[in-house]
């Protein structure tokens, strides 16, 4: 039997999930020194990843990508094209790994299911998951009922993962209990009729939380409430994912694991566009929480343009020369 995530929370907080008690726990977290955090992230960014390590990293990056399209202009055609890209990222080399998941709006989930066909499934088995953003993404400004219905719709349509946004209004005005309850309620809405459950990624929208202390607090709040993943951003707010923010969230995940034994995933999303940047994230994961986190169930890149840069690097490693943007396919 899988342990319910609230059991982990119980071991830390007890059974009292009142706002007062949550605040006492979260305010007891150690502070974050911004200068020191950024210096450590910069230091991790100086690792020199060459030859065989680089080749391994490039394939790993592809297999950890949530290939994303989140536009008002998304159409069934666009989603089919994205799925084709995810299934066969580089037609010139069929040994190229598939991406981990497609990430789309809830109403596009059905099209994604159709497009993936038999390749729809668990990324651990080499298949591709479908992640849907929900809960009035990206702003989260809607009633609780709408947010939960949004989630249930996406799950019913076949989403394997739900990327929800936290209520930043509640968080920034100090109503932590409200944020906590909402994550729990969305988690409940991820449960399918057969009793299984879609994985829940909790988007903190770190660009709006603004301070590192807030990011650490929100990370713990999301884990206490049962999030399977904590995710930096929607990609709609600048700054989106940064290396220091991701490092900080990885530290939270590491400490959570040390205290509860549970492994929570991390997804930086938005703004990671080059292989060079993505490799820095792999280094940061490995040296902070350990290499075992470099698996689709524990680490993802939320990205769209990253994939083609990685493919160009991959072609360069195998052929010894750079090609160009016309030698990789758009979507």
């Amino acid at each position, binding site marked *: 039997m899988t342990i319910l995530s609230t059991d982990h929370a119980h071991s830390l907080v007890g059974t009292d999930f009142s706002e007062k008690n949550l605040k006492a726990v979260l305010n007891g977290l*150690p*502070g*974050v*020194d911004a*200068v*020191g*955090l950024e*210096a*450590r992230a910069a230091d991790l960014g*100086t*690792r*020199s*990843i*060459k*030859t*065989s*390590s*680089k080749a*391994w*990293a490039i394939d*790993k990056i592809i297999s950890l990508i949530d290939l994303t399209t989140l536009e008002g202009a998304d159409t069934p055609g666009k989603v089919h094209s994205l799925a084709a890209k995810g299934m066969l990222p580089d037609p010139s080399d069929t040994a190229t790994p598939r991406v981990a998941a497609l990430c789309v709006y809830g109403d596009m989930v059905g099209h994604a299911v159709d497009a993936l066909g038999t390749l729809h499934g668990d990324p651990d088995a080499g298949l591709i998951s479908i992640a849907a953003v929900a809960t009035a993404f990206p702003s989260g400004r809607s009633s609780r009922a709408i947010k939960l219905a949004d989630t249930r719709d996406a799950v019913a349509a076949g989403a394997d993962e739900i990327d929800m946004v936290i209520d930043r209004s509640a968080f920034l005005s100090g109503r932590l209990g409200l944020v906590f309850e909402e994550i729990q309620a969305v988690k409940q809405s991820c449960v399918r009729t057969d009793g299984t459950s879609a994985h829940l990624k909790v988007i903190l929208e770190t660009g709006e939380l603004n301070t590192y202390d807030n990011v650490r607090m929100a990370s713990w709040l999301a884990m206490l409430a049962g999030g399977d993943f904590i995710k930096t951003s929607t990609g709609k707010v600048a700054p989106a994912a940064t290396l220091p923010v991701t490092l900080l969230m990885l*530290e939270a995940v590491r400490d959570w694991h040390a205290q509860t034994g549970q492994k929570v995933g991390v997804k930086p999303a938005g703004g990671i566009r080059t292989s060079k940047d993505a490799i820095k994230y*792999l280094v940061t994961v*490995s*040296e902070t929480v350990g*290499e075992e986190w*470099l698996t689709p169930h524990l680490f993802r890149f939320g990205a769209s343009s990253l994939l083609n840069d990685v493919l160009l690097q991959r072609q360069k490693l195998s052929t010894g020369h750079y090609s160009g943007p016309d030698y990789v396919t758009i979507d």
Partner: protein
Amino acid sequence: MSFLEYAPAPESTGLLNLRENYGHFIGGEFVDGSGESFASISPSTEKHIATFAAGTDEDVNRAVVAARKAYDSVWSKLSGADRGKYLFRIARLIQERARELAVAETLDNGKPIKETRDADIPLAAAWFFYYAGWADKLDYAGMGANPRALGVAGQIIPWNFPLLMLAWKIAPALAAGNTVVLKPAETTPLTAMLFAEICQQADLPAGVVNIVTGAGATGRAIVEHPDINKIAFTGSTAVGRGIARTLAGTGKKLTLELGGKGANIVFDDAPIDQAVEGIISGIFFNQGQVCCAGSRLLVQENVHDEVVDRLKTRLGTLRLGDPLDKNTDIGAINSKVQLERITALVAKGEAEGGERWSAACEIPEKGFWFAPTLFTGVQTSNTVARDEIFGPVLSILTFRTPAEAIAKANNTPYGLSAGIWSDKGSRILAVADKLRAGVIWANTFNKFDPASPFGGYKESGYGREGGIQGLSAYLEGGVR
């Protein structure tokens, strides 16, 4: 495969163009020494790098004569703006040759290339840029109009930051209008000789900078030379004491930057992950061979176990090995002698009851290496809590209250550096106010800037280097 076993990423030594034999740099020329020669080896491989001349009394005298002549006939007559031009030129040449200097320094000293590349060499350039700016502004150094230079300065530097210590010494001396005779340490003379080439490239007038290589006897000849106006020494307290004794009553000015046993104080409200990083950079930067290293960790008793656990986990990710590899965190110990000293002190620490823990690193067969080491259960009376080890060894003590932290931090014959880790600004200021140390870092450690004065209390020496204070140390009427 394991991703964390990063594939080798060595910096190439191909761009080095070294000579087999180096003499001294006197009067703008490379000249043969009149005495014996000695070899410099790479501490990570024990391979021979080049042969250097052991400076004799005669060599030192030639250098001092050249420096005096340059002072009297050229350097003291140049305008400050013109002196500044040469210094700016040197600074830019250091930047242009940065990669070559970083490789040479790593080869000769044993420290990781990421440190020479990101700290030693850029800071050396920064020192020249900073003091170049002062050269034509001496009227504003706080000593009235037209402050006068001292004349010829004799400068003796250590092996832990060879080129950076050279910059700390030469840049302010030249900006203030002095000429210099400098002796690099006998285990690390290489980058000083590359610097001599830079002086030639910069067309620096002959004799303004003279470099004499050698060991203790050469240093003594500089200290005892009658025509030197100022001695600046960075090194061990024992040698510094001897120099002070020799110079007593001679009228020569003296600044001493000696040993340290820096306290790094971690309060229970510290930003814990950043504190762990700071503790590591405090004691494992340059393998702990840093006079201002945070070698005594004072941690509040209620967070002791957590801090030690986190430290051990983090130390497990440090990579010890080939210093030229860009991913190496911990390089080689500079010399066999130093390794033996570290080993002996660590043995003493164990004998006195300290609990030793060393990171599990594979130690290369050749070269001089020491794994990052912690001592817990250390008492203030233990040798490892009192003596400067000058190696990658951290002694961990506990305290209960701020008052006790301050008392323990100050309870040392040294007083060079200290660190404070706390999220509470008022506490940082209150504690810093009561620490007797020349430099105090708050929520960081081992950060250097040319505008900031650096120096010690008590047995850590006297005088300041860096900033306006470091400039005035080379001017008449200055602090030292």
